[in-house]
């Protein structure tokens, strides 16, 4: 669907040259929701804005269904853009038009006849659940409702691709949830491809199939969302995951343990069903004391965290830890106060 090849974007300011995109290569498949996450200034907005050429790349290619859009003549580019919907963090609705007028706007631009336009507008407003607000002005709507208008407007010309630039970043968690649900639903119903950028891991967790992590103009890690959660390789990725999966445990946990080795074990999916702890205890003659445990859900797959206190011979403890790692679990050794113990490398 989208293929980005060797994309570079440089901004020249008076003082310096900023490389906002540094050789990006990316493939996005038809019908998937692809997320790009990264900290502020990573180049996410720049990247998504090159996909409809709001930003002109310095070099590189962007192929949409095999067609290189970077070399399109202005009028062909405008035609092409009609088939690429876009939604924005600050909605960017026309204040002078009602909900109906805003959704009708891209159809007027595309020259759709009035009767057809009205039919489609009604259907779209129905689709995003704003039928009772059709004649309201944006100023009379909540943030979530405004973004629904934005989505209806973006879908008006039946695009094959939807670009979302931080569409939920100025919404409360509840509205964010319902907007993400709406995006997932229209992807299924309209067989749309969605490229979204965000700085919130929660958004990636809730709707994305695949994700790329961006830092300083580069993509540093990429893969299926579930794989990334299970096996993050970059420290930035780990930090993003930690931002939504609570790794902070009640401090009292660590107050009255017996002086054994504290470890944190994380596991994803299947391993949950294996009797690992009991094999650990039996095989290595250890006492395993469960201090804390919880299971999160990532797109329907259980993601568990356990804090164990292992008591026994130090050698056996180390072997036990390696055993767990061998079973595909992530194991980290904690110091007595529950912080990651940098000194102990197993």
């Amino acid at each position, binding site marked *: 669907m989208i293929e980005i090849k060797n994309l570079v974007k440089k901004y020249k300011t008076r003082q310096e040259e900023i490389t906002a995109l540094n050789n990006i290569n990316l493939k996005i498949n038809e019908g998937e929701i692809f997320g790009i996450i990264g900290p502020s200034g990573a180049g996410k907005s720049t990247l998504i804005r090159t996909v409809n050429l709001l930003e002109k790349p310095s070099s590189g290619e962007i192929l949409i269904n095999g067609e290189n859009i970077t070399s399109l003549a202005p009028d062909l580019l405008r035609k092409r*853009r009609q088939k690429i919907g876009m939604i924005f963090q600050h909605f960017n609705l026309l204040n002078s038009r009602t909900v109906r007028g805003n959704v009708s706007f891209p159809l007027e631009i595309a020259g759709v006849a009035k009767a057809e336009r009205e039919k489609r507008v009604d259907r779209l407003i129905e689709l995003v659940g704003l039928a009772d607000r059709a004649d309201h002005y944006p100023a009379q709507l909540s943030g979530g409702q405004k973004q629904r208008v934005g989505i209806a407007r973006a879908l008006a010309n039946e695009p094959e691709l939807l670009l979302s630039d931080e569409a939920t970043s100025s919404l409360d968690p509840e509205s964010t949830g319902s907007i993400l649900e709406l995006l997932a639903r229209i992807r299924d119903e309209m067989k749309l491809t969605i490229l979204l950028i965000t700085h919130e891991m929660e958004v990636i967790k809730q709707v994305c199939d695949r994700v790329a992590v961006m830092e300083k103009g580069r993509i540093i890690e990429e893969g299926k969302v579930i794989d990334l959660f299970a096996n993050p390789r970059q420290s930035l990725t780990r930090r993003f995951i930690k931002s939504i999966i609570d790794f902070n445990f009640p401090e009292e946990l660590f107050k009255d343990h017996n002086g054994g080795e504290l470890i944190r074990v994380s596991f994803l999916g299947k391993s949950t069903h294996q009797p690992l702890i009991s094999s650990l205890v039996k095989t290595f003659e250890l006492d395993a004391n469960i201090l804390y445990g919880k299971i999160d859900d990532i797109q329907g797959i259980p993601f568990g965290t356990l804090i164990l206190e292992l008591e026994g011979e130090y050698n056996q403890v180390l072997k036990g830890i390696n055993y767990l790692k061998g079973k595909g679990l992530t194991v980290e050794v904690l110091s007595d106060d529950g912080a990651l113990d940098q000194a102990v490398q197993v």
Partner: protein
Amino acid sequence: MTELLTRLSRYNQLMLAGINETLYMVGFSLLIAVIIGLPLGFLTAITRKGHIMENTPVHKVLDLVINIGRSVPFIILMVAVIPLTRVIVGTSIGTTAAIVPLALAAIPFVGRIVDNALQEVSPGVIEAAQAMGATPLQIVFKVLFSESLPAIILGITLTAINLIGYSAMAGAIGGGGLGDIAIRYGYQRFKVGIMIETVIILVILVQLVQWLGNLLAKRFDHR
């Protein structure tokens, strides 16, 4: 008091004619100023750096024209354009002749007001339209114009009020209207009552125009 009013009522015909002439001068010069100033303001705004038809040389020239036009004091403009007025109208005195300097003064004023109003339109909204594949012309009419209409209306209202003031000045050099009456009767013949009456009428006129402008602007303002 009643005595004063009866004495003043002898000049009712004169006053009505004065109001008429003022409205004629202001109305026509405003119309011309809008017809020329509106496109001038649009062109200035959209050729600015980063806007939909960025063109720095054109922008700089238009910006300069507006600035120069705005910096010439009306009283000087009025005298300076007399030759031009003669060419256009055939004479340099009378209400029709006054329209020329009035319109000339108001054109750059409207231009600047429109330019300012357009700069208030959110760049995000313009960008959204571009992302939908809108042409520059579609953006001008469907985005810039409709989004800034309330501000443009208020700006034109302000221009109209300024023109009422200027038209009184134009009266001083034989332009007719309420200003002319105030000077000829009030100042030169010491008829203070008439002077005060014209001032009161001008105040009411300004209030009316402002009220109408606010009403109209509010009608289009949905922010």
